[in-house]
C-alpha cells in the first residue's frame, strides 16, 4: 500500500474545498446572527404578548343589537353568532379555496358568556334574519321597534350599535343615561356638539362605554408603541398614512336588497335628525356617501388610521387640520369626497430625540386617500433615527443620517436599506384574504391579529375586553377619551374639507377655535351649500 504524493493530491483535493465552504457557511450564519443580536440587544424591543383579560363570569351579559347590516353581522359573529346564510357562504368559499379559513376560525373562536336578547333594525328583512338565525326555544329573541324601547325595556344589559353615523351619539347617550353598556361603531359621533354631550353622558353613567376601534387589540401596535417609547425611531416629524381602494365595496356602493321598499323599511326612523327626503334605497344602503348620515373618508376611514396612530403615540387632538380633495372618481350623486388629503399638525408633540435638546419638536400627520386606486401605500412613521412601516407586520429601517445609530452605521453593522427590526407574528401562518376591501383592512392590521401564529379576529378580542370590563371593572382600551380624540379630529378634517380652510383646536378650553359667522355643526351636516352664505355672516 503505497500512495504517491500525486495520489494524495488527487485523493484529498476535495478536502480544502470542503473546509472552505464549511468555514464560509458557518461564518456568514454566525456573523449575521451576531450582528443581529447586537442590534436587537441595543434596541431592546419586546414583542407584545396578548393582553390577559379576566374571565366573563356569572350570568351571561344580555345583549341587544341595534343595526344588523354588514358591520352589525360582523360584530355579532365576534360575539359568537353567525347566520346560517353566512356559514353556508363560507362553507362554499372554503370548498373553492382550501386556504379560506374564515368558517374554521369562527368555529374555533372562544365562546363568550353572552346571550342575544333583542334586535332593533329598521329593515324588516334584517331584523327577521337575526331572529330566524339566533332565536331558540329557550331564548326567544325580541324585536324592538325603536332603540328607546330596547334600552328602556330593562331586558338588555348592553347594546351593540352598528347604525349609520348620525345615530351613534343619540343611541349611545340614551343607553348611557339608562346605565346600559355601549359598544358603538366609529366614528363615535356625527357632529361636534354631540361629541361633548356624549362625553358628559359617558362620564356620568355607570355603564361601560367602548368605541369599536378593534385594532387596539392588534399585537403589532402594542409592539410599535414599545418601539417608539424606546426611542428607536428618534424624533418622528412626519407620519404618512393612506387609504387606497378601487372597488365598488370600497367606494361604499353596497348591494341594494331586492326586498327593500317603503313597506319593509321604516324610513322615518332611518332619517332621524337627517333632512327629510323621500324614500331612497340608495341613501338607505349606501348611506356612507352622504354627509347627512355618514362622514365620508374623514369619518369612516381616516378615523381608523388616526386611532391606529393615537394608540401607538397617544398624540391626542391636532392643533390644526387642513384638508383638500374632491369627488373625482365616483360622480354618482354622493357628496362626500372620494379623494382627500388631510394634514394634521402637532407642533408640540415629540417622540423623543437623540439630538441636541430643543432642536426637534413637532409632527405632521398626513392622511392621503383615494377611492380610485388600489395600490397599497403602507403607513410609515418617519423619524430622525429610523423609519417604521406599521401594519400587521412591522419593519424598522435605520436612517442613513441617524445620530443614534451613527457608530453602528459607520462600522457597517447597520445598513440604511436593511431593516434592523422586523416583527411578523404571521410568519408561521398562511392566509387567504377574500376581497380587495378585506385585504385593505388586513394589511392595516384592522381585521385580525396573530397570537402564537394563530389568526384571531381583533373585533372578537375588542368585544371580549368590553364584556370583561362590564363584569370585572377596569378600563377599555378605546373608551370615551380615545373616542373623543378620534371624533373631534375627524370632524376637524371634515370641516376643513367642506370650508376649504384650516380648523384650529384650542387645547386649554377643549374647544374648536370659532370662525366668525360659521356654525360648525350646520356645516358638518349640510349635504350641500355649506359655503358661507351672505345671511349667515353677521
Amino acid at each position, binding site marked *: 500500500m503505497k500512495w504517491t504524493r500525486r495520489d494524495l493530491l488527487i485523493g484529498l483535493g*476535495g478536502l480544502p474545498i*470542503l473546509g472552505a465552504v464549511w468555514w464560509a*457557511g458557518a461564518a456568514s450564519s454566525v456573523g449575521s446572527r451576531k450582528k443581529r443580536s447586537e442590534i436587537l440587544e441595543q434596541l431592546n424591543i419586546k414583542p407584545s404578548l396578548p393582553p390577559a383579560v379576566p374571565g366573563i363570569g356569572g350570568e351571561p351579559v344580555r345583549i341587544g343589537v341595534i343595526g344588523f347590516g354588514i358591520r352589525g353581522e360582523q360584530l355579532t359573529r365576534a360575539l359568537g353568532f353567525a347566520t346560517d346564510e353566512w356559514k353556508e357562504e363560507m362553507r362554499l368559499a372554503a370548498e373553492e379555496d382550501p386556504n379560506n379559513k374564515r368558517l374554521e376560525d369562527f368555529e374555533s373562536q372562544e365562546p363568550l358568556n353572552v346571550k342575544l336578547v333583542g334586535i332593533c333594525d329598521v329593515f324588516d328583512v334584517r331584523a327577521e334574519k337575526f331572529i330566524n338565525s339566533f332565536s331558540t326555544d329557550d331564548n326567544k329573541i325580541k324585536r324592538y321597534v325603536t332603540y328607546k324601547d330596547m334600552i328602556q325595556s330593562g331586558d338588555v344589559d348592553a347594546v351593540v350599535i352598528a347604525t349609520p353615523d348620525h345615530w351613534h351619539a343619540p343611541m349611545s347617550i340614551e343607553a348611557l343615561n339608562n346605565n346600559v353598556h355601549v359598544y358603538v361603531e366609529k366614528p363615535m359621533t356625527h357632529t361636534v356638539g354631540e361629541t361633548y354631550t356624549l362625553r358628559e353622558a359617558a362620564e356620568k353613567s355607570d355603564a361601560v362605554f367602548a368605541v369599536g376601534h378593534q385594532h387596539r387589540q392588534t399585537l403589532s401596535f402594542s409592539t410599535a408603541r414599545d418601539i417608539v417609547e424606546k426611542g428607536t425611531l428618534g424624533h418622528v416629524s412626519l407620519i404618512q398614512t393612506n387609504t387606497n381602494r378601487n372597488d365598488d365595496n370600497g367606494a361604499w356602493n353596497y348591494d341594494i336588497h331586492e326586498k327593500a321598499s317603503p313597506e319593509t323599511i321604516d324610513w322615518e326612523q332611518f332619517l332621524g335628525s337627517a333632512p327629510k327626503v323621500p324614500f331612497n334605497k340608495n341613501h338607505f344602503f349606501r348611506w356612507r356617501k352622504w354627509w347627512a348620515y355618514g362622514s365620508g373618508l374623514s369619518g369612516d376611514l381616516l378615523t381608523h388610521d388616526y386611532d391606529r396612530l393615537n394608540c401607538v403615540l397617544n398624540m391626542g387632538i391636532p392643533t390644526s387640520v387642513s384638508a383638500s380633495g374632491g369627488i373625482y372618481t365616483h360622480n354618482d350623486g354622493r357628496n362626500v369626497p372620494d379623494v382627500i388629503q388631510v394634514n394634521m399638525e402637532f407642533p408640540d408633540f415629540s417622540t423623543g430625540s437623540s439630538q441636541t435638546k430643543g432642536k426637534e419638536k413637532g409632527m405632521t400627520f398626513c392622511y392621503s386617500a383615494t377611492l380610485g386606486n388600489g395600490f397599497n401605500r403602507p403607513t410609515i412613521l418617519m423619524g430622525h433615527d429610523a423609519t417604521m412601516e406599521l401594519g400587521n407586520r412591522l419593519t424598522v429601517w435605520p436612517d442613513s443620517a441617524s445620530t443614534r445609530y451613527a457608530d453602528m452605521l459607520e462600522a457597517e453593522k447597520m445598513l440604511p436599506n436593511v431593516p434592523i427590526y422586523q416583527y411578523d407574528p404571521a410568519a*408561521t401562518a*398562511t392566509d387567504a384574504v377574500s376581497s380587495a376591501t378585506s385585504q385593505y383592512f388586513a394589511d392595516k392590521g384592522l381585521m385580525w391579529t396573530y397570537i402564537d401564529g394563530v389568526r384571531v379576529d381583533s373585533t372578537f378580542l375588542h368585544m371580549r375586553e368590553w364584556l370583561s370590563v362590564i363584569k370585572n371593572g377596569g378600563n377599555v382600551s378605546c373608551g370615551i377619551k380615545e373616542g373623543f380624540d378620534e371624533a373631534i379630529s375627524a370632524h376637524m378634517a371634515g370641516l376643513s374639507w367642506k370650508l376649504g380652510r384650516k380648523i384650529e383646536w384650542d387645547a386649554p378650553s377643549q374647544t374648536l377655535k370659532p370662525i366668525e359667522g360659521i356654525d360648525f355643526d350646520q356645516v358638518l351636516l349640510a349635504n350641500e351649500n355649506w359655503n358661507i352664505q351672505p345671511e349667515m355672516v353677521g
Partner: protein
Amino acid sequence: MNLNQNKLKASVTLLRIFIGWHFLFEGVVKMYNPEWTSFGYLATAQGPFDWFFAMLIGDATIGWVNTLNIIALMLVGFTFTLGIFERVGAIVGAGLLAMYFLAHPPFPGLTQMNVEGSYWIVNKNLIELVACIVIYQLPTGSYFGLDHLRKNKLKTQEQ
C-alpha cells in the same frame, strides 16, 4: 479518444464539486442558524402534491423534516466535494431536488413565489436534478477524490 475521456472526466468532476459546494453551503448555513425552518417553503407549497407538503408541517413532523433536510444536504455536500460514495450522494441529491421541485413546480397557472428568473416547467432545481443523474452515471471520485485512494489501495492489495 482518451484525451476526450479525460476532458469529459474533468468537466464532470467540476460539475460534481460545484454541486457539492452548493449543497454543503446550504446545509452548513442552515445548521448554524437555529431559527431556520422549512415551514414557510412547505406551507406555501403548490401544485399536484401540495397535500403531501402540508402533511410535513405539523408540530410533530416539522422538526424531523428540518433535521433530515440538513443531514441530506450535508451528505450530498460531503460525498460530492470529497469524491467518495458519490452515487449514494447523487441519489439523495436527486431525491431532495425532486421534493424542492414538486413543492413549487413552475407549472403554467401556478404563482411563482420568491424566484429569480422566468421558468416554464423546467427550472434550476430540475436542471440540478438531471446533473445529479449525470454524476450517478459518471462517477469521478477515482479520477479526483477520496475514491482514488480507495481504488489504489485495493489495487495495491491485489498485487
